[in-house]
Every structure is written in structure tokens, then in C-alpha cells.
């Protein structure tokens, strides 16, 4: 643990201790004087201390320096739930994944069934919240609705499990089937609140790329990342990567739902954007495949570096699965660009780590920027050029970090 994290760690302990021991009155003391509220950094079950945007539902953001690693450790992997009521205990003897609806044979599968009766498959894939990096929209355009995440609502893990296709084929999909709905065990506090229910077309469900995962980086899924099962849809934003997956429902007809038709949608046009500041009044479609993106893991913002140091600038890049062709870097705020070295390839859906050795020769303030292009020519936009949407989804503009050379 680096010194900064240790300080946050202890600080969080003190804050929590005070508010618990002395009661609610002391809670005001947690407020920082800065304009932007800084959420506490606290360890949740199976997690190292992470930035806790909310405890209920839990929203935990990973720190930027996690992007120095191609594989995100489970205990630092971000957390995002939608509903406040999540079971705090799952008995694997009783837990069953139900496969139901327009199938010949409905199934009720235990985690053991999945592990022993199906072919295991493994894939390394990025998991990114559709609203990841949302707060950066406000830097160049109008602020957008939703949780104001930095870059830390994404990670990359090795997922192991069973093909959704194999499960559906075991149940026998009826000829009339057109959609597959998925949902997990999280529940709203008010009965009328829409359930977190996601749908995909039957062809996508049968494509073979989607996995019902029971393992993450060689371990059981952390509870907060969806123990015991979650859907993995490589190349796609995580809105349909349902956690604590409990029901797979094959359907003849699309079921209209809030989380498909209202939330997680973007303008239904080529740029998936509208004029900055427009409201939600446009034809919309669900977000789906991810856009090419790269972020800087080191240095982190406001790092102070001694002149003449050999700085190994490090980060990750990824796209929807076409593959990263090149990551360019600028250390002069975008005036000139150089190629970075692409490091080990973990697969087309994984982070592609990159590095660049920089030896700053003069003192002063520097802006480091990175820009990725994929194999089909998609390139990250500059922040001032990114298409805007009211929900603040799919942010993928060029990342930048300011450092000081002394």
C-alpha cells in the first residue's frame, strides 16, 4: 500500500469511528471544505479501501493507479449495483440459476452443475460501466445526469464459466423465441420500482461469446462483483453483465422495461450524440459495444517528478474487441505525439497495456495525453470534440494528466 492510500485508509477509519461512537451529530465534521465532496475511502467486504461514492446501493470506484496493471485484482475491482436490497448471504446448496420461458426443458442449475456438467471456458475481458468517466463530460460541455464517475468504473479480469449458448441449448430454445431476459437477486426497496431486468436478442444470446461466469481471476466472484454468477458479455458495456444472475428467461416478445428503454440509452443516430445541453427528447437506443479508449495509470494527476528522472508512463487501452493498433502519447499538451510501446496482448477483449519512457529535461508544468486507435480506424476524440448525450454514457475522449517537473 502506498503512503497516500495508507493515509486515506486510516483517515477513513477515524471518520467512521467518530460517527459511530459518538452518534449522528458528529457527522457534519466529515464535510471537507473543498467545493467538491470527497467521498470516504473505506474497505468493503473482500475489497481493499476504495472510494465509496455510495454505500447503499454500493458504488465503489477504483483508483487511477489500477491502470498500471493489465489485470485488475478482485479486491480493487470497481462495484456498481442499482438496487438497495442485495442478499448478504448465498447458500450454494440452495442457490439455483433458473432457465425458463420459451424452452423445451426448464432448468434449475446449481453452481456445481455449471462447473461439472458443462464445458468450462475462459476469457479475459474488460468490464466497463456505461457511465464510466461521466464527470469529464462536464469539463467541456454540459454536465450529464448520473453518478459522476472518474475513470475508475472499469476493470479487466479473467472470467471463467459456461457459455450461455450451451445452457440455452441444454434447455432447448423453442422456435418462437426471439429474446432472452436476464436478472439477478438484487431487489428494489419499493415494489413498484422497475426491476433490474436486461434483454438481448436470441441470436446474440446464442453467439457463443457470452459466458455465465463463476470465477474471476481464478477465484470465486467477490460478493460485491456478483457472487456466485454473473453474465460476461465481452466487448459490451457492463449494463447487461447481470450480477448474482438467478434467472434466464427465453421470450417470444420483447418486454419493455426502464433499464432497457430509458436508462442506459444514447441518441439513435450515427454519432450517438446531440447538441450539448439537449434534454432526453430524442429517439434512443440501448448502449452496446464499447468505444476505443485509453487511460493513464502512471503518473497520476499532480505527481511531482524530479527533472532528469526516467519516467515510465504506463496505462491501458481497449476497444470493443477489434484490437488496439496504436496508442499515441503527447507530453506537451497535444502539440506533438509519439508512439507508445504496446505490451503483452491478453486477448482482443482485454486491456492492452502500453508504456512510454519519458525523460523530462526542463522544469515546469506538463500535460501528458494519450490517444488510442484500433484496427478498424476508430480513434479517440479530443475532449472538445466528443459527442454529447444527456445520460453521460460512453465517454472515451483523450485522457490527460498534469504533472510538475521540479
Amino acid at each position: 500500500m502506498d503512503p497516500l492510500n495508507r493515509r486515506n485508509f486510516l483517515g477513513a477509519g477515524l471518520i467512521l469511528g467518530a460517527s459511530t461512537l459518538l452518534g449522528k451529530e458528529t457527522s457534519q465534521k466529515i464535510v471537507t471544505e473543498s467545493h467538491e465532496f470527497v467521498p470516504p475511502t473505506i474497505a468493503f467486504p473482500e475489497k481493499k479501501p476504495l472510494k465509496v461514492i455510495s454505500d447503499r446501493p454500493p458504488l465503489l470506484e477504483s483508483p487511477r493507479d489500477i491502470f498500471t496493471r493489465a489485470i485488475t485484482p478482485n479486491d480493487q475491482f470497481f462495484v456498481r449495483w442499482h438496487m438497495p436490497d442485495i442478499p448478504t448471504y448465498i447458500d450454494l446448496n440452495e442457490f439455483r440459476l433458473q432457465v425458463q420461458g420459451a424452452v423445451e426443458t426448464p432448468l434449475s442449475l446449481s453452481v456445481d452443475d455449471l462447473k461439472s456438467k458443462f464445458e468450462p471456458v475462459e476469457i479475459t475481458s474488460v468490464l466497463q460501466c456505461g457511465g464510466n468517466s461521466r464527470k469529464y463530460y462536464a469539463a467541456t460541455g454540459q454536465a450529464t445526469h448520473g453518478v459522476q464517475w472518474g475513470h475508475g468504473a472499469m476493470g479487466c479480469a479473467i472470467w471463467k464459466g459456461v457459455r450461455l449458448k450451451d445452457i440455452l441449448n441444454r434447455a432447448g430454445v423453442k422456435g418462437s423465441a426471439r429474446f432472452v431476459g436476464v436478472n439477478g437477486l438484487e431487489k428494489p426497496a419499493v415494489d413498484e420500482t422497475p426491476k433490474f431486468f436486461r434483454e438481448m436478442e436470441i441470436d446474440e444470446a446464442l453467439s457463443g461469446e457470452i459466458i455465465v461466469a463463476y470465477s474471476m481471476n481464478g477465484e470465486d466472484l467477490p460478493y460485491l462483483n456478483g457472487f456466485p454468477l454473473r453474465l460476461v458479455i465481452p466487448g459490451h458495456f457492463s449494463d447487461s453483465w447481470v450480477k448474482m444472475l438467478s434467472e434466464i428467461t427465453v421470450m417470444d416478445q420483447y418486454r419493455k422495461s426502464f433499464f432497457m428503454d430509458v436508462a442506459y440509452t444514447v441518441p439513435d443516430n450515427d454519432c450517438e450524440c446531440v447538441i450539448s445541453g439537449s434534454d432526453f427528447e430524442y429517439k434512443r437506443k440501448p448502449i452496446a459495444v464499447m468505444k476505443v479508449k485509453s487511460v493513464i495509470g502512471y503518473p497520476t494527476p499532480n505527481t511531482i517528478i524530479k527533472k532528469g528522472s526516467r519516467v515510465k508512463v504506463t496505462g491501458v487501452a481497449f476497444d470493443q474487441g477489434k484490437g488496439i493498433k496504436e496508442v499515441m502519447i503527447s507530453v506537451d499538451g497535444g502539440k506533438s505525439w509519439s508512439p507508445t510501446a504496446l505490451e503483452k496482448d491478453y486477448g482482443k477483449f482485454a486491456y492492452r497495456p502500453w508504456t512510454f519512457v519519458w525523460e523530462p529535461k526542463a522544469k515546469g508544468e506538463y500535460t501528458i495525453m494519450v490517444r488510442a486507435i484500433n484496427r478498424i480506424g476508430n480513434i479517440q476524440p479530443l475532449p472538445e470534440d466528443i459527442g454529447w448525450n444527456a445520460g453521460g454514457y460512453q465517454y472515451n475522449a483523450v485522457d490527460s494528466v498534469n504533472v510538475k517537473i521540479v
Partner: protein
Amino acid sequence: MKIKLLIAGLLFSTSALFAQVAKPIEMPYIDYPIEKGDHDEVLQQYCLICHSFGYVLNQGKKSRPYWTGTVSKMVNEFKAPIPKEDQQIIINYLVKHYGYESASGHR
């Protein structure tokens, strides 16, 4: 609704991080501080049914139309059972403490 807090276990014994969910986990409870007054008790009553005040504090300062839109989303989409007059109290509170007056825009 308050969830018991397990400070010592969670914060000071990282080695005790559960390898798997073999027993019930205990989620930390965080008392996100919001400003007192202007009927903050109405927010305590309704907002906390579904989410912590972390959601509010995370938004930063926002305009009246923004907060109005957010409250109507809670009512119309998420079906929060908030009577009309209390919706207005909540909006006014949010604009005063976590926002500003303006005719339009999302900021």
C-alpha cells in the same frame, strides 16, 4: 434499515477479507453528511428509502432544472412514493444547498 457497521473487522484486519461468501457479509454503513435545515427531514424520509446521500453529494452543484429533473425521475421512473408538496420541498432544499438558481441547462 441501518446496517450494522463492522469497523474493526473490515478496516483493520485486511487478512480477514473473506475468500468467499461462506457466511453472511456485513456491509459498512456510511453516514453521508448533508446540510441541516430547510426540511432536511423530508429528504431523510424519502431519499434514503432507496439510496444513500452519497448519490446527492456526488452530483456537485446543480441547477434547479437539473434537480427538478432528478426528483421527477425518482418519482416517475423509480416510483418513489413522494407527495407533490414534498417533492417541491426536496427540490428547494437541493437547489439551496447543492445547487443554484438558473433558468435552463444541466449544470
